[in-house]
């Protein structure tokens, strides 16, 4: 067993989850593959969305995978960073919009 929770080498083993639940694993990877195909959105656009979400769910495997995927697609570092900011802005906005609740409660309780 590794001494830390995350081991970069584990990413290569992702496909092995199918060994313990073949039906669900196979369905997941089929779905996953289909999602990232060219569609109404380009595969390039989806790669940037995935990179942003990877940061918001704080998944180090996904960050490695979609940084590499972006490089392979010729996505620039400026585009990558803007995508991460778009995700981070939504995440911080989600925190800050709760401040309205705080303000409402504050005003209700205050004389």
């Amino acid at each position, binding site marked *: 067993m590794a001494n830390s929770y995350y081991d970069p080498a584990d990413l*290569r083993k992702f496909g092995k989850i199918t060994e313990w639940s073949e039906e669900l694993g196979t369905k997941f990877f089929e779905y996953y593959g289909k999602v990232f195909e060219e569609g109404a959105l*380009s*595969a*390039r656009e989806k790669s940037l969305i995935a990179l942003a979400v990877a940061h918001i769910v704080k998944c180090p495997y996904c960050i490695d995978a979609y940084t*590499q*995927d972006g*490089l*392979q*697609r*010729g996505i*620039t570092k400026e585009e990558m960073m803007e995508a991460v900011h778009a995700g981070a802005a939504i995440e911080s906005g989600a925190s800050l919009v709760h401040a309205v609740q705080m303000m409402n409660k504050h005003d209700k309780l205050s004389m």
Partner: protein
Amino acid sequence: MATKSLKARQDALADFNKQLNILENGLFADGELPYFRDKIAESGHFPLRPQKLEILQINVGYMCNQVCEHCHVDAGPDRKEIMARETMTQCLEVIRKTGAHTLDLTGGAPEMNPDFRWFVEEAAKAGIQDFIVRSNLTIIRANTKYYDLPQFFKKHNIHVVSSMPHYTRGKTDKQRGDGVFDKSIKALQELNAVGYGQPDSNLKLDLVYNPSGAFLPGDQAALEQDFKKALKEDFGIEFHNLFAITNLPISRFLDYLIASENYEDYMYALVDAFNPSAVANVMCTNTLSVSWDGWLYDCDFNQMLGLKNASPVKHIKEYQEEVLQNRNIVISQHCYGCTAGAGSSCQGTVA
């Protein structure tokens, strides 16, 4: 960024035996990754054998005006290996009798060979159907004596294949050196101006994309679309096809992989992306590579690794096509670079 070749820096990796030692040992000797011969044996491709010879690729010298970080030739201004007219004459004899329909001139910067134009003129007379020159583009702007190269290429209906790692300045200059992007753009515009790369033009202009780092190229068609859109919108540049070529773990790219601690991950990535259907069409099955001093190899990469072809015919002066066609192709673990994903060759993807 280095301004000298590994050879001029007297780097240990300038020795191809050192490179082969790395490729034969480590991950592969430990059994962590399969040897290439075992991998292709699984799909019945070992030993790898040639098909019909289509392309004669001649490396006319390792001298170059650039010192690109990923260069598999370890080319640069300090390299003195240049094909002499005597060897060119031997090549011309072969060009006249070969069944190959394409002559592919590479380097270094092939245009820097002092006999380059003479050789092109003589080879054109020999009636090759497709005549490729692999140009780094900046050579066209490097010195006034090269300014007329676009016209020269046009005169001989040469198919120009040019390196262009990205459509942005930052990524291009990082791989190929400061100022390379601007000079390349100017050179492409000049090639366009004489008729190269226009949608209906017979003057063929293709671009080569190499990843600028330790990752594999993405989808060739998607990259081509992005390159076309950006180069057209930003600079009014037109070209025909984009070839996405995987960097092979040899020479300066191997040096980079080791120095940046990416070697093992990169080899895993190549092996994981192994595509059996790419094996049948790897370029060594339809190409022969000739070095500046006339030796015959299965490909330009094997040439740089000192892996001469395995037939009894070792040198251009003793060329016998039927004997060469009956050889086994020499392989090592760098070959995974040509079988990853959609495959990779000097003509782009193969699968």
